[in-house]
């Protein structure tokens, strides 16, 4: 096993699906991200924690957060830096818009080839799609083994990592040499919180686009003096990706139809919490053999 590892964390900034408004969807059936509060995908935080655990175990290792998204997705790179990541890369280009999981995986795999890590840690799935596809698909694109549903990195044995997986029917412990890609479950430990010193250190970290749109002379000077405040931003050209495999054109799945949810109306019998109502209801349920 190497002494230090290059670790890439795959993460996504997701719309908070618990707070969805009416303008959440565009006419073409894709998500109108601009209209929604954006958060760090929960299981990607579990993934970040596992990456930081590896860094604790292999001091001198480097944790890089890779995310694909619009300019504001740089927020989760800063958040990761506050919690212990060394840096991040924002993969951002209009050509990525409308990508399904396969086109997304292709784009991420192009960026990963450039980063050349030893290990990739991703969340199991993102709450906006709940597909759990991007992790395995990225592994396939790289020709790497995948270890899904990871709960704990137990240790090392020779050149292998020993990893505990949480399955529906139980627990499985596997051994696998690097390189490998793992996806981490919500049942894994929560991510460590922000570290005050790191917040002070990285709060002015910005991508080139952010620096261009809103920046003071003070910020600019700071970023010149401290190169770690520059968050890397890559376009399609930077990762040498094939346009035909990106965006809507590169996505085998198409959205045929989107229906907003309206339940078929049915007459519910209205009751109150009054004793007579509940008594009557229980009598009816027993009489109809629904109960007992």
């Amino acid at each position, binding site marked *: 096993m190497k002494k230090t590892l290059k670790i890439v964390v795959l993460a996504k900034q997701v719309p908070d699906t618990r707070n969805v408004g009416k303008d959440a969807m565009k006419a073409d059936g894709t998500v109108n991200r601009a209209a929604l509060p954006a958060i760090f995908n929960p299981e990607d935080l579990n993934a970040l924690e596992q990456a930081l655990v590896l860094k604790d175990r292999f001091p001198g290792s480097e944790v890089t957060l890779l995310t694909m998204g619009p300019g504001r997705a740089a927020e989760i790179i800063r958040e990761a830096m506050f919690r212990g990541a060394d840096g991040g890369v924002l993969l951002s280009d209009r050509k990525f818009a409308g990508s399904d999981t396969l086109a997304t995986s292709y784009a991420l795999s192009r960026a990963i080839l450039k980063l050349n890590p030893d290990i990739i840690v991703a969340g199991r799935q993102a709450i906006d799609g709940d597909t759990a596809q991007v992790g395995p698909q990225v592994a396939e694109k790289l020709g790497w083994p*995948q270890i*899904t549903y990871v709960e704990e990195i137990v240790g090392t044995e020779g050149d292998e990592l020993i990893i505990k997986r949480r399955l529906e029917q139980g627990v499985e412990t596997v051994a696998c040499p690097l390189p490998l890609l793992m996806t981490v479950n919500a049942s894994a430990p929560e991510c460590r919180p922000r570290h005050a010193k790191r917040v002070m250190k990285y709060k002015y970290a910005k991508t080139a686009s952010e620096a261009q749109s809103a920046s003071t002379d003070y910020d600019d000077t700071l970023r010149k003096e401290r190169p770690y405040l520059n968050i890397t931003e890559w376009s399609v050209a930077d990762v040498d990706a094939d346009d035909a495999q990106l965006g809507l054109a590169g996505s085998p799945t198409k959205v045929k139809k989107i229906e907003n949810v309206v339940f078929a109306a049915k007459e519910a019998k209205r009751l109150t919490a009054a004793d007579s109502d509940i008594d009557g209801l229980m009598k009816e349920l027993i009489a109809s053999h629904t109960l007992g």
Partner: protein
Amino acid sequence: MNNVFVYCEIESGKVADVSLELLTKGRVLANTLGCDLEAVAIGHQLDGIEKELALYGADTIHVADAPELAPFRTLPHAAIVCGLFKEEKPQIALFGASSVGRDLAPRVSSALHSGLTADCTSLEIGDHTDAKSGTTYTNLLYQIRPAFGGNIIATIINPDHRPQMATVREGVMKKEPAQTPGKGIVKKIDASKYLNDTDFVVRIIDRQIEDRKINIKNAPVIVAGGYGMGSKENFAILYELAEVLGGEVGASRAAVDAGMTDHARQVGQTGVTVRPKLYIACGISGQIQHTAGMDGSSMVISINTDPNAPINKIADYAIVGDVMEVVPKMIKYYKQNSK
């Protein structure tokens, strides 16, 4: 060629329920399309497995049987499925949305560059005309699923790539032996031509497979709590009611995410699908993601302080009130009346 395929999960020689459910659905799709239904069984000691698969409608059963193929590991199973699909060119391939299927299917879809839709709640056959090119496609697989936190229902299609792949959770489709059993022809897969040494790089050191301790799927009565329960402590009253009524406790995703109860109790698109005789929804608003997992219940009672909660639209009885007040009364009057 161009048939409907189902990847069958096998644990200790037993075919998973979800795979039999998919065969049941696959049989219907194959009949609509006028093609055969084929099953893929990869594992060890699979002699005789074709009998059960044929009963659920499989015409052809592709079997790869070797000690190193069980228990399931991603890479060897993916290599065999990809190799087989390249030769057989299925038009549709279905996988369980289980620990196995959700691990395997994306790997296969990436290798074959075919689209995959996760956690479908309905599968239908239909046509499509592309608005831009005007091209008409016939007999596509409509892959229907709630998306975006359950706020929308999306119909996904894969017009240009094969196979059209989908995963479906256990319990979503019905499990029923086919009216006419499938032909049940066994075709041995020559796995050696698809496998490399590197496919066995992941070693399984230990496996602790438990019988699922919590099983709400077959409960006749489910008392389910939502985020409106407020706390883990308040859930106690639901366990009491469930016990009195001979049922189990279920929960919405919001309640599980908030740590009020175990994930094994989650009902809905990303949890279990249930069809009890009676479903009592306590403090559950009724997002489509939840109702997708319980709207097949014979009777639904909702208890909610909000008279306009969406759950009331599918409820047979809507009790407008506080769960902490109503549930104890249900316990009291059930005991009183059932004597």
